[in-house]
């Protein structure tokens, strides 16, 4: 008896109360009837000998159907209810749980008050769901930022490009002083605005880069099949739960090593967005298949579903449009498919959707294969990836305007090119095409302009061009696809067409796309005319000759001025130190050049990387963008153990170094140093 009493006390303390089912909907409390029961179901109920629980609690009324089924079955164990909440007379909420069991042949209902442990359970659920909500919100924010970045690059830079081009053209005219000052103000302010846009872009690019590089794989050419495998594995539980079969196309062989442009995290997001889309529209019991097909120059990835198919009036443009939500095939927020589109197109691919013959729909994207990496030269002085490295930033600074001291070019400042080059311009935007054409013609070059990549290829088949300036994004065949085709055609010959990209994209992966397409360099829009001339002529040895305005040495801006300015900044105006640095560099440079030459000749990538790195660091003190760029390219070749084109790059390095050497030798005279240290003062 005493033992029973102790046991009952223990149960009561743990919040349990036991009822025996008497039949006819009536229950009898076993042992004590706790106060919390009285608060919820009333003290009156216990004064009666039996309770009709179903009448006291709608929840128990529902559960007792399951309990009765259990009591009348031969099942072992117990049938338990989920948690439910009862309110007492003071409106205080009590969490409860119930079990139906058979004990000693009796039908027993056990109810437990969970108040003591519920707070912790509530806290865990709350934390988990708050985290999910925050995660969803974060994903939405990231997608919006990516869209914003895209819009800034492609929309804002276009009119600015035209403005800067017009100012540049006007600055080459002979204008009265007041008008010239106004033009100079326009140049300076448009430059400042460009810097502001770049600043915003760099801020976003940096943030996105952190997201994208978090797994450290972003720089490698990703394996499309591995991405498909990864995402299918990730989505399998969700599909299983919805009763949909998710499978990889049996023909898909992970061993292919299908390397493509882009990066794995975003490829997986593209697959993921397409799968989420398929999951929404595929009925229970049917299937979704992910596969990849080889299309020679590119790979076709697809997600096939067995859903109702695309609505009759739905076009691909509509499905993948920004904020295309809540229509025929609604997306999460109207951003998922748009993200797929801008990302795939960003990498030079395409995306679409169509109905399948046997029913259901296919969402697909084509993406270029990754090609062997070759180094690339750039006239972009503002790349987000370069800003963290002073030496690289200096190396890439080819325009006379520094960030701190924007200043317009003097009229006729650049003069005429030493050699008249035949230049093919492929640019779809009329105003840009006209501006580039006019700038190049004023420089003394011969220009033939076309509107897309296909026309550029046709022009190249009929005539020789020294350089092709290729806009990246054009309707029909874009610049990257045209470049890939040109490189493909060159394989049978020894020829190498110089192709310079014109682009508004500054992110690191854009650079990678250009490399993979086979471009030799690029100029970012809005471009500076000096940067444009410099990159063209550095690739063709079409160096400048003194033009009309350069007849006056004070108005000229020889390369030595840049070197001097850099040197002055590096040494904080200490002329003795500057002279010493010049002497040391010139004394040491021949050995470093010799080391690089030997590494190239012996095809030794490790020594090449080391020697080129050392030389690059030394030259960067003097600005010397062309020297530094060539050294950087050689260093990259060494690091990637890919020495294709190393000899050519070394020849560039040698010739650029010869120019730098001449400039530095001029600086060693006191008059030269003085003149070069204050170039802008002397211009006035």
């Amino acid at each position, binding site marked *: 008896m005493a033992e029973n009493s102790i046991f009952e006390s223990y149960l009561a303390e743990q919040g349990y109360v036991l009822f025996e089912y008497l039949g006819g909907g009536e229950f009898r409390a076993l042992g004590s009837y706790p106060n919390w029961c009285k608060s919820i179901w009333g003290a009156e109920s216990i004064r009666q000998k039996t309770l009709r629980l179903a009448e006291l*609690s*709608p*929840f128990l009324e*529902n*559960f007792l*159907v*399951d309990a009765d089924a259990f009591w009348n079955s031969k099942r072992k164990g117990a049938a338990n209810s*989920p*948690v*439910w*909440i009862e309110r007492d007379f003071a409106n205080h*909420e009590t*969490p409860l749980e119930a079990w139906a069991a058979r004990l000693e042949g009796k039908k027993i209902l056990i109810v437990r008050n969970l108040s003591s442990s*519920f707070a912790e*359970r*509530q806290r865990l*659920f*709350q934390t*988990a*769901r*708050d985290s*999910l*909500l925050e995660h*969803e919100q974060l994903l939405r924010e990231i997608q919006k930022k990516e869209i914003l970045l895209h819009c800034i690059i492609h929309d804002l830079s276009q009119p600015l490009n035209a403005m800067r081009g017009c100012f540049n053209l006007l600055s080459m005219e002979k204008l009265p002083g007041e008008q010239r000052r106004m033009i100079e103000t326009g140049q300076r302010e448009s430059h400042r605005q460009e810097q502001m846009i770049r600043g915003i872009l760099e801020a976003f690019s940096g943030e996105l880069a952190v997201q994208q590089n978090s797994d450290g794989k972003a720089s490698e050419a990703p394996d499309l099949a591995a991405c498909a495998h990864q995402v299918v594995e990730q989505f399998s539980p969700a599909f299983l739960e*919805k009763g949909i079969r998710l499978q990889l196309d049996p023909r898909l062989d992970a061993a292919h090593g299908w390397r493509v442009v882009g990066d794995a995290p975003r490829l997986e997001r593209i697959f993921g967005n397409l799968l989420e889309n398929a999951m*929404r529209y595929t009925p229970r019991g049917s299937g979704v298949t992910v596969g990849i097909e080889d299309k020679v120059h590119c790979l076709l990835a697809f997600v096939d579903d067995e859903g109702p198919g695309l609505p009759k009036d739905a076009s691909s443009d509509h499905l993948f449009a920004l904020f295309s*939500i*809540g*229509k025929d095939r*609604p*997306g*999460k*927020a*109207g951003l998922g498919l748009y993200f797929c589109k801008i990302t795939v197109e960003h990498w030079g691919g395409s995306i679409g959707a169509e109905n399948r013959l046997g029913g259901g729909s296919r969402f697909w994207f084509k993406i270029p294969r990754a090609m062997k990496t070759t180094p690339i030269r750039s006239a972009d002085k503002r790349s987000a990836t370069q800003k963290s490295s002073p030496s690289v930033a200096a190396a890439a600074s080819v325009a006379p305007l520094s960030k701190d001291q924007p200043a317009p070019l003097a009229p006729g400042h650049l003069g005429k090119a030493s050699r008249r080059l035949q230049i093919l311009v492929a640019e779809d935007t009329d105003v840009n095409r006209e501006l580039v054409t006019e700038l190049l013609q004023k420089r003394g070059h011969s220009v033939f302009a076309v509107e897309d990549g296909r026309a550029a290829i046709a022009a190249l088949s009929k005539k020789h061009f020294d350089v092709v300036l290729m806009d990246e994004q054009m309707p029909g065949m874009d610049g990257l696809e045209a470049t890939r085709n040109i490189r493909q055609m060159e394989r049978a010959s020894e020829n190498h067409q110089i192709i310079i990209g014109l682009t508004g994209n500054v992110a690191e992966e854009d650079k990678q796309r250009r490399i993979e397409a086979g471009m030799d360099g690029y100029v970012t829009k809005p471009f500076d005319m000096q940067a444009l001339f410099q990159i063209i002529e550095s690739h063709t040895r079409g160096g400048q000759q003194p033009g009309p305005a350069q007849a006056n040495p004070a108005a000229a801006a020889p390369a030595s001025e840049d070197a001097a300015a850099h040197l002055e900044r590096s040494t904080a105006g200490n002329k003795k130190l500057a002279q010493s640095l010049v002497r040391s560099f010139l004394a040491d440079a021949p050995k470093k050049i010799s080391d690089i030459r030997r590494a190239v000749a012996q095809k030794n990538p490790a020594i090449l990387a080391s020697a080129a790195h050392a030389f690059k660091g030394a030259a960067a003190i003097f600005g010397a963008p062309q020297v530094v760029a060539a050294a950087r390219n050689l260093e990259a070749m060494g690091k990637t153990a890919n020495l294709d084109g190393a000899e050519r790059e070394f020849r560039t390095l040698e010739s650029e170094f010869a120019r730098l050497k001449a400039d530095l030798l001029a600086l060693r005279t006191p008059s030269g140093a003085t003149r070069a240290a204050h170039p802008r003062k002397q211009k006035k």
Partner: protein
Amino acid sequence: MLQKKVCMLGSFAVGKTSLVRRFVETIFSEQYHTSIGVKVDKKEVRAEGRDVTLVLWDIHGEDAFQKVQISYLRGMSGYLLVADGTRQQTLEDALALANHVAEMMEKIPAVLVLNKCDLAAQWEIEPDREARLAADGWSVFRSSAKTGESVEQAFSQLTLAMLRK
């Protein structure tokens, strides 16, 4: 008095509990408290000249942590399908839940409530999607448990539908 069991169905954090509190107690709290399990409330209403007690089953939101058990729905006369208009996915999940109910039970009166319409700037569901849902037979309400907008109307519409069945 006539009693009708009404279930609140939808994803987590769409505002089911807030809608019930607004309807029963005319109270709203900005604080999000996730629901665990089931809470049953009652509200007496009058429709078509009859007094009706609505027994409101506020069922926890479905997600990876908690699944809605079909046994909760036993004896249900109608349900409010609730989605958060600022989270498009909750509408898709709600409609999937409705399909699941349709597979398991006979045709049951229901209304679709797109909640949180006070957050207009974050609204993700386009008007023509709502129009298509209406064309599919849904009674669609843009509601706000915070302001009370369309809350009474949604429950009234459901009550009428249950009485007329």
